């Protein structure tokens, strides 16, 4: 079961473990990680599950899919090269130890 570390805007960290195949957004919500709003529940409709993948791991997390890529242009916090919608990022054992940063604003 991969472990993910969420770094929150206030400087604190939340460590979360979830089964492979779980969306990163779901792992955050099921563990009450603040700042992942996920208004649409993972349907790629809202862009309120935005995260920045740690630069060093951005490659192993992979690029956004096409729809996600377009949506990322309209997130509440600025888009960066490492931006992903966490509902579109599936966890796997290869991503064990993933670090993601939660942006200041989601809506």
């Amino acid at each position, binding site marked *: 079961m991969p472990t993910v570390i969420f770094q929150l805007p206030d400087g604190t960290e939340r460590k979360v473990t979830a089964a492979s195949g779980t969306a990163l957004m*779901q792992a955050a919500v*099921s563990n*009450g990680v603040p700042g992942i709003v996920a*208004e649409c529940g993972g*349907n790629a409709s*809202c862009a309120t599950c935005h995260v920045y993948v740690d630069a060093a791991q951005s490659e192993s997390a992979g690029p956004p899919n096409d729809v996600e890529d377009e949506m990322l242009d309209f997130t509440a916090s600025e888009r960066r090269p490492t931006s992903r919608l966490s509902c579109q990022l599936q966890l796997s054992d290869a991503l064990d130890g993933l670090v993601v940063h939660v942006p200041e604003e989601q809506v």
Partner: protein
Amino acid sequence: MTTSGAPGVVVVGGGQAGFSVASTLRASGYGGPVTVFAAEPHLPYQRPPLSKKAHTDHDDLRVSLVPETFYRERDIDLRLGDDVVALDPAARTVRIRSGLSVPYAHLVLATGARNRPLPVPGADLDGVHALRSLDDALAIGRALTTARDVVVIGGGFIGLELAQVARARGAHVTVVELTDRLLSRALSAEVESHVRERHERAGVRVLTGTAVRVLEGSGRVERVVTSGAVLPADLVVYGIGAAPRDELARDAGLAVDDGVLVDEQLRSVSDPRISAVGDCARHPHPHADGPVRLESVQNATDQGVLVGRRIAGQASAPYESLPWFWSDQGDIKLQIAGLRAPSDDVRLTVGDSPERLAAYAFRDGLLVAVETLNWPAEHLAARRLLERRTPVTASDLTGTTLGALARARRAAEVRA
């Protein structure tokens, strides 16, 4: 129950809006007791997935908004399976089913809505379902494992979503709609015709302008008799609209008119110590002519945030969040930003692929609402521009999209 002596906030209803109030109170630093009475036995959960997936087992965890620990860690007293049966604004108490009276300093009504019952004979046969709760969804999910002929009564969002879920399970699906359009209250005619065409292409039979007369069968439903035909059916799902659960307020003498009437701070117009949020509230909104009642996750969440912050003592502006909505009907992703009026001027645009459409609604020459099909980026761009009240005219959109406009404006802001 939390005991700090003084009465705190009592929330009636453990749905999307009630959850939003309780979590916002704590996030905003409110330190008094917070009690949420939730009639259903489940942790507060999301309703949207219920009509978009066929749940067959108790998948609670995946629809719950947050896990149980969330409430404990924040000292939110969540009373599942406990409903409020009366309120007494003069004494500032609510009575719960067991007979106990609970005092409040502030009361929030977040009771949601209930489905309109199907007013035809046979509606009580086995195999006839409405869909609102997780338990309803589980029952429908189980029925879909064997159903061959599914009749959906009502061509609204929930009915159309369910029609696609049933199609994906291989059933023959017929949607029966009384008016001559699908989604007639919510969607422009321009977009509706495309939605209909896509459902038909996916193999759903759509009968508009058709009234259901009677459901027939011995014990279980076998047929749906309409004004035009007799449809075989082993599962019938109906979604013909919802009505606000405002009877607690009405019985207590608060002003009610198809929803609890609230001011722009979402306080009952009759009693400033009572607020109402979500599906059960009728509120003024700068984008609407008169008070509106909206049934959406956005509305429930944002109203809960406003009330939570206000009670916690944070400065609060009038409620004016931009309304937005989504519906996933199989491969059809429909999104709406803003509030369209029937008299608005609607322009349809095809996106960079024929699957994508946007309809822009203008009032007095300015963009007020946008409906999109399979084009989430354009929807988000619409939200950004409408939220910021950036004026957009029809000529601004000649030969371009909102996405391109929003990107250009953002780039200009960065340069400035």
